């Protein structure tokens, strides 16, 4: 078969979409994953995927989706990519539908949609409460078909260790390790796409993410020169189950479908929740944010719960927990629309969420930041230029990134159900960009000299050998637990510069310790500790980037909350027309002036670059060409 050779690393939604496009374009794809594709974290997504179909009689519009996404993200996202993503969303849903995805239906047999956070329209398509798994079935089957036709060559149980660059610094392949035989081998390619997912494991075990969402692959690309953007912008999901091994997510769909968050009005009230009368319950989200109520954006809900429990000491039983209540809703309705999460709660908490309220608390969930990627603005449409080879290109030539490991669409806070969308859409756009990139390549990677590949294999092999031989006494599992505890306590929902400085010092210490690990096993076959130890080292390095970026941003924006720099909203709610110029209220006028001055200073993308002395943090302007940011976020 003619065509060029491309490597896609990652078999979640992003990677599978990129694979479909590139193999569909006539090129050979080697698809790498740590395990079978269907075990990727994407299968965990529950609530749904956003697309404006306007089939609920609510006059929804693509413009509104763009505005909600930009504003929900604290205006920090580059706007042309967001515009194009929102415009493409309905078409993506239709394509998923053709693949056989079992989207939930209305009585007329049309696609049903539900409400999610940070918006007022029902815009979220869903497949019960297992949407991610269903979307994955769709693309996984399509990729399997290409595999059966010999157009995709899967490398499951292989882990990317590093990139290989040619003499000009262009990425021309990867070095990966067979997780069974531990063989370290180089693979050549004319383009490499990373779709390696999120990094919630930096907060272990207080995270909703799978154990494979380590960010290690992105960290490796960063250490080899790819820039990392907005690392400090990390989302804490407000409603995760309490758990010592993992804090399992209870989807935002629970609130979208009518679930209510509350605590007893009397913090010393120890009655069973069902025995507490309505009048003695404090629905604090509804009280503080009457306009959006329980479906405020996630950063706001998480901080509100944090405030209730940590500042006001008003959590249930005085602890870190509040109620998420579905018991007032129609059983059959909830069962069909949220069945998958109900069963998770029943299985893991041992109680029925339809019988008594669930107990929840915020947990680490989603990285808005990620590998910096480019785009080409299309003046004709105001969106991104279709097929431009610049779209989703990282700062390393030849290397592309898509899915949660890039930073492109969510600014400072992601709206619920927007990331299955961005993972799919970015996979498709990255795939199209790669097709254009390949058209410009003169000499295929197969013709390159062997030296850089052999050198990189030797370098990676020596890291393995050293780890296998090391008897330094540090245990990788304990180091990871220490990292998680540190990040959760010092780089969490609420941030403070003194704490961040302390965190940086602790991370430096962890990095030192991680250089002296003892794997406690030296088996040459399927040695899981070896792979894990390497991931832990790279997670610690990524944590440093995240913390340094958080230290650098002295303001509050979206999920990044430093109370010392907060601009409190005026007590009165702005008239809905309140914008920069048109507000008579002097308190608002003063606020708007400060808000805009703050934007002048801080409405910028944080960009981290690797140096031997640690991350160098810089800022670059945000493309605001679609909608001038003139509305502060006020969800009251």
């Amino acid at each position, binding site marked *: 078969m003619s065509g060029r050779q491309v490597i896609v690393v990652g078999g979640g939604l992003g990677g599978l*979409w990129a694979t479909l496009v590139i193999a569909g374009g006539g090129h050979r794809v080697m698809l790498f994953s740590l*395990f*079978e594709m*269907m*075990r990727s*974290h994407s*299968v*965990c997504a529950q609530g749904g995927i956003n697309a404006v179909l306007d089939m609920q009689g609510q006059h929804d519009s693509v413009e509104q989706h763009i505005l909600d996404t930009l504003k929900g993200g604290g205006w920090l996202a580059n706007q042309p990519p967001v515009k194009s993503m929102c415009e*493409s969303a309905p*078409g*993506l849903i*239709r*394509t998923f*539908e*053709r*693949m*056989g995805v*079992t*989207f*939930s*239906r*209305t*009585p*007329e*047999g*049309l*696609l049903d949609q539900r409400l999610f956070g940070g918006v007022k329209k029902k815009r979220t398509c869903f*497949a*019960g409460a*297992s949407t991610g*798994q269903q979307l994955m*079935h769709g693309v996984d*089957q*399509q990729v*399997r*078909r290409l*595999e059966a036709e010999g157009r995709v060559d899967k490398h499951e149980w292989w882990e990317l260790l590093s990139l290989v660059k040619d003499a000009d610094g262009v990425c021309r392949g990867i070095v990966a390790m067979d997780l*069974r035989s531990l063989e370290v081998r180089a693979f050549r390619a004319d383009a490499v796409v990373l779709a390696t997912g999120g990094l919630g494991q930096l907060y272990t075990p207080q995270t909703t993410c*799978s*154990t494979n969402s380590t960010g290690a692959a992105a960290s490796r690309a960063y250490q080899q020169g790819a820039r990392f953007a907005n690392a400090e912008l990390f989302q804490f999901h407000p409603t995760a189950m309490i758990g*010592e*091994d*993992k804090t*399992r997510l209870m989807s935002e769909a629970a609130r979208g479908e009518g679930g209510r968050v509350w605590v007893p009005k009397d913090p010393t009230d120890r009655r069973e929740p069902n025995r507490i009368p309505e009048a003695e319950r404090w629905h604090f989200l509804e009280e503080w944010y009457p306009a959006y109520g329980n479906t405020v954006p996630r950063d706001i809900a998480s901080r509100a719960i944090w405030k209730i429990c940590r500042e006001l000491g008003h959590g249930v039983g005085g602890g870190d927990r509040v109620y998420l209540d579905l018991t007032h809703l129609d059983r059959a309705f909830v069962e069909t629309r949220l069945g*998958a999460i109900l069963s*998770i709660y029943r*299985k*893991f908490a*041992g109680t029925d969420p339809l019988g008594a309220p669930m107990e929840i608390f915020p947990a680490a969930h989603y990285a808005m930041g990620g590998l910096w990627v480019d785009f080409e603005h299309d003046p004709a449409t105001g969106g991104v230029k279709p097929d431009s080879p610049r779209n989703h290109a990282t700062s390393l030539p030849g290397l592309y990134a898509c899915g949660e490991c890039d930073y492109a669409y969510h600014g400072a806070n992601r709206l619920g159900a927007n990331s299955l969308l961005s993972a799919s859409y970015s996979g498709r756009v990255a795939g199209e960009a790669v097709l254009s990139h390949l058209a410009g390549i003169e000499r295929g990677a197969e013709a390159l000299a062997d030296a850089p590949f052999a050198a990189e294999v030797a370098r990676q092999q020596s890291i393995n050998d050293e780890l296998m031989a090391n008897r330094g006494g540090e*245990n990788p*599992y*304990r180091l990871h*637990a220490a990292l998680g505890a540190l990040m959760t306590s010092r780089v969490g929902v609420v941030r403070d510069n003194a704490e961040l400085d302390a965190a940086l010092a602790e991370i430096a210490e962890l990095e030192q310790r991680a250089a002296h690990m003892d794997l*406690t*096993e030296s*088996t040459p*076959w*399927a040695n*899981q*500790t070896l792979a894990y130890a390497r991931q832990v080292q790279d997670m610690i390095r990524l944590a440093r980037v995240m913390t340094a970026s958080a230290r650098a941003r002295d303001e509050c924006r979206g999920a990044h909350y430093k109370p010392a720099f907060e601009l409190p909203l005026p007590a009165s709610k702005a008239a809905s027309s309140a914008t920069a110029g048109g507000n008579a209220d002097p308190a608002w006028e003063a606020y708007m002036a400060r808000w805009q001055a703050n934007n002048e200073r801080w409405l910028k993308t944080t960009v981290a670059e690797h140096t031997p002395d640690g991350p160098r943090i810089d800022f670059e302007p945000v493309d605001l060409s679609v909608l001038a940011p003139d509305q502060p976020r006020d969800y009251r």
Partner: protein
Amino acid sequence: MTSIAGADRPALRGDGSADGARDTDPSSGSAADTQRAHSRSVELQIRRQDAPDAAPYWQRFRIATRPGDNVVSVLRALRADPITADGERVDPVAFEHNCMEEVCGACAMLIDGSPRPACSALLKDLGAVIRLEPLPKFPVVRDLMVDRARLFAALKRTRAWVRLDGHWDNHERAPRISQRQWAADYLYSRCMSCGICLAACPQFPDAAGRPADDSAGFVGPAALGQVRLLNAHPLGRYDKAERLHAIMADGGLTDCGNAQNCVRVCPKEIPLTTAIGELGRQTTVQAVKDFFGV
């Protein structure tokens, strides 16, 4: 005296009986330990195997547990401190897991002789001694890790996909599907490729002597469920005949011995025998069509 393993868990002394928590090492007194004081210790008996062709052997571990623990969480804890009940330091036990919420299918294994996901096997529902073995029928990679390539090979054999013109948008509105049909179809889309139904199926051939991605022998219930699902889809229907022919061939539907184990063990409660029944009718019709050449 036996030593007890577990990451950052208090070392327990004594016999580790169900209420062995009273033996919690008094030297550690953090807040978290107060909670652990209500916990107990369990004995894990694990069937280990160092490599695919190595001989299996058993090891026992005693481990302190915490409330809410499941088999995956204790295996994770054990990794940091793999010391057997006889006090011997050994290699960590290899096993698979990702989601820890029963949706990725990775963690399936035999627990006290039954195939099930380990992450949703809560310790409070298990005894003081828990026996763990790799999922049967599949080749062992190492310890509790198996190679389930055959499961995915079956999806290829049965052509479990819709044939799209391409990944692009064709601007056509999604086909209408009644809520009733959706509800019936959705059940099959919950399959998480865990392989538990195959492990339990007496007709699904054992791995011994077969390649990991073997494409002969009974395709097994999981793939049949997907054929049922795709045959019902408005576009998937176009290739129904091909899929039916695939399951009318050797190793197809007629290999099902109707033991009905699959439907009993599937953790996602997928009505696999209903699917097999429906496909039986579909293949009968297909055979008639084939006979008359329509």
